[in-house]
């Protein structure tokens, strides 16, 4: 990754963050890509959305941890004959909308798969573009006007950030520290991440801690603790409502694979259920959709959420 660092030579990450804050190109983006009728939106869509979200919110069996594999950005670009960067922009917009919706519905944890370690085998220019995009978006996520502070979202970046260039690493640290005071909900951004890497790093951390006599015994619970706390030892008791296992996994673009994503977490047994209640409550639900990620609408997600509430 040294070449990338040399290409993007910025004096300090914080100065660029301030600079980006001034630009706020989220607004322009939205006006550029949305062609919804404004009257229809204010009169029909927004009340309907409000109604449906409050419906999901009162349901007791709503999902608490939703996870996304955002797939199909490049195919979208190919189909619509637009540049790949543009398609990534639209994809990001979709993500924002869906995150807004999910937090409205009372989902506490959302995990999105943004970038896999294996994506580094893509072409250099595309990786550079993606990194630039990530820089812009990470700043927007923590922007004051954005949803982060509205919903009290804590942003966590999962993955091997050592693979990123210096500037991005600095940014990630900055953003994590900025939002660390928010407690309402959690947003995990998997960036550069693979499920095997997650398991492996948790194993390694557990082994190191075992040698340092921090833990006495390694059981499934210890591994759970390490994985759900992103490779760190948790302070007991673990709050499963915050870091709990997956309830709903949504993958777009009609591929029926996990693609190295959340391998450990796709387990049906629910830690959050107490022993006196059902132990093996089957809460995990897979949803493989045939649409490309930028085409995914909030109505589809609402449908999935209501269906989830119904079937549990």
């Amino acid at each position: 990754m040294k070449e990338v660092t040399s290409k993007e030579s910025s004096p300090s990450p914080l100065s660029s963050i301030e600079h980006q804050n001034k630009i706020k190109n989220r607004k322009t983006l939205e006006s550029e890509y949305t062609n919804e009728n404004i009257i229809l939106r204010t009169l029909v869509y927004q009340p309907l959305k409000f109604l449906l979200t409050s419906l999901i919110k009162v349901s007791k069996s709503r999902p608490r941890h939703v996870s996304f594999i955002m797939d199909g950005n490049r195919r979208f670009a190919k189909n619509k004959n637009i540049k790949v960067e543009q398609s990534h922009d639209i994809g990001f917009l979709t993500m924002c909308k869906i995150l807004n919706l999910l937090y409205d519905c009372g989902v506490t944890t959302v995990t999105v798969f943004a970038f896999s370690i294996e994506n580094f085998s893509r072409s250099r220019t595309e990786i550079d573009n993606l990194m630039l995009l990530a820089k812009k978006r990470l700043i927007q996520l923590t922007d004051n006007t954005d949803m982060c502070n509205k919903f009290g979202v804590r942003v966590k970046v999962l993955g091997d950030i050592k693979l990123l260039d210096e500037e991005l690493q600095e940014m990630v640290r900055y953003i994590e520290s900025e939002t660390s005071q928010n407690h309402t909900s959690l947003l995990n951004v998997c960036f550069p991440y693979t499920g095997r890497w997650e398991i492996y790093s948790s194993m390694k951390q557990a082994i190191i801690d075992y040698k340092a006599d921090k833990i006495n015994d390694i059981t499934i619970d210890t591994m759970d603790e390490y994985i759900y706390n992103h490779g760190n030892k948790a302070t007991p008791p673990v709050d499963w409502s915050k870091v709990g296992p997956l309830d709903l996994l949504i993958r777009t673009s009609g591929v029926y694979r996990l693609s190295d994503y959340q391998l450990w977490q796709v387990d049906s047994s629910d830690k959050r259920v107490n022993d006196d209640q059902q132990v093996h409550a089957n809460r995990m639900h897979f949803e493989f959709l045939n649409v490309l990620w930028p085409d995914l609408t909030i109505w589809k997600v609402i449908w999935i959420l209501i269906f989830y509430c119904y079937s549990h």
Partner: protein
Amino acid sequence: MTDLEDNNVIAETQELLNSEDGSYSTSANLASKRTDYNPLNVKPEVSKQVPCLTNTKYIVKNVMQSQKENINPSIFKDNGKVNIGDGNRKSINDFISVEFYRLNKTIFDFLMKLLLALIFCNFSVFRYFQYNYNCVKLKFYSLLYNPADSPQLIRNDVASLLKIPKRLAAILEYKPEEEVCGGVLGLMEDASDLVAWSLSAGIKHLTLYDYDGLLKDDVNLLRKIIYSKLCKYFGGQNPPKFAVRIPHKGKVYYNLPTSSSIFEETSSDKKVSIEIVLLSVTDGRQTIVELTKSLAELHKEDKISEDDITMKLVDTELKQLVGEEPDLLLYFGPNLDLQGFPPWHIRLTELFWEHDNNNVSYTVFIRGLKQFSTCKVNVGK
């Protein structure tokens, strides 16, 4: 706040108290609510603290007392949300507005729950039709694809596919004895069916997973059942040879259990057409944990250094302990549920299940193979 004001407030509220006899009704009457949560409500013998809300100890005592008297001190439950002012007057106003908000919210929530129930009613009708539609679809497919106990037909079905998986995995579910094809025998029957189908389709490695490890417990019975099934498919004279491997115990069994000793097994017996791997929940997370444990012990005794523990080491160890990663995973249930299948081994595995299907059928098998033949794996690209 001056002392004079304070005294006024106390006098006012005591008047209020006397007039209402301190009736603790849980109705939505705001006036009574006001007395309920009034900090001045506390009798001096219970609390000798100065009645001021800035005093947290005082609030706690108030709450405790109201709990004793069976009043819901709900405002104090969601602490942090209600911003209690520094004076009594302000706090009373706050309480009123909070109560208003809570009342509105309860009404709103109730309406929403009603609406949700209505929507769920519609959903159940919708699900009924969807379920029937799926069942009819499956019936239709089962007419279309019928193995009819002959490998030739299966081979014809598979011949049109571009590629077939090298390694196939299937999650089997134990059904209670009362059901059709239930019990351990039903499970083994399903397993032997799968063996016959994949052998006919030309798949060399089959992984069978069941949560409780029932297949593992009685290997000899399983081998007998598989043998008889293969005889049925391929003719009784010379059925194909098979091996059953149990990675957890580290044992391999060849063909039929024979009364004679193991030494008589000739080398020709070890050339098998299909290898069957039996897995259960202990091969999943438990194995990873055990590997971590043994590595941790080694690391503690300084036999291996920190840098020795690499991704590659973990990968090879797990491959040895459990086996290779399957290309296609079939699940014979209504909703995909991995049931603790080894997490390390489903990295790029294609998943397949039929909605609202509840038995091990050839339809699911062949449709899974069809889906696999059209999928394109491009790691990272």
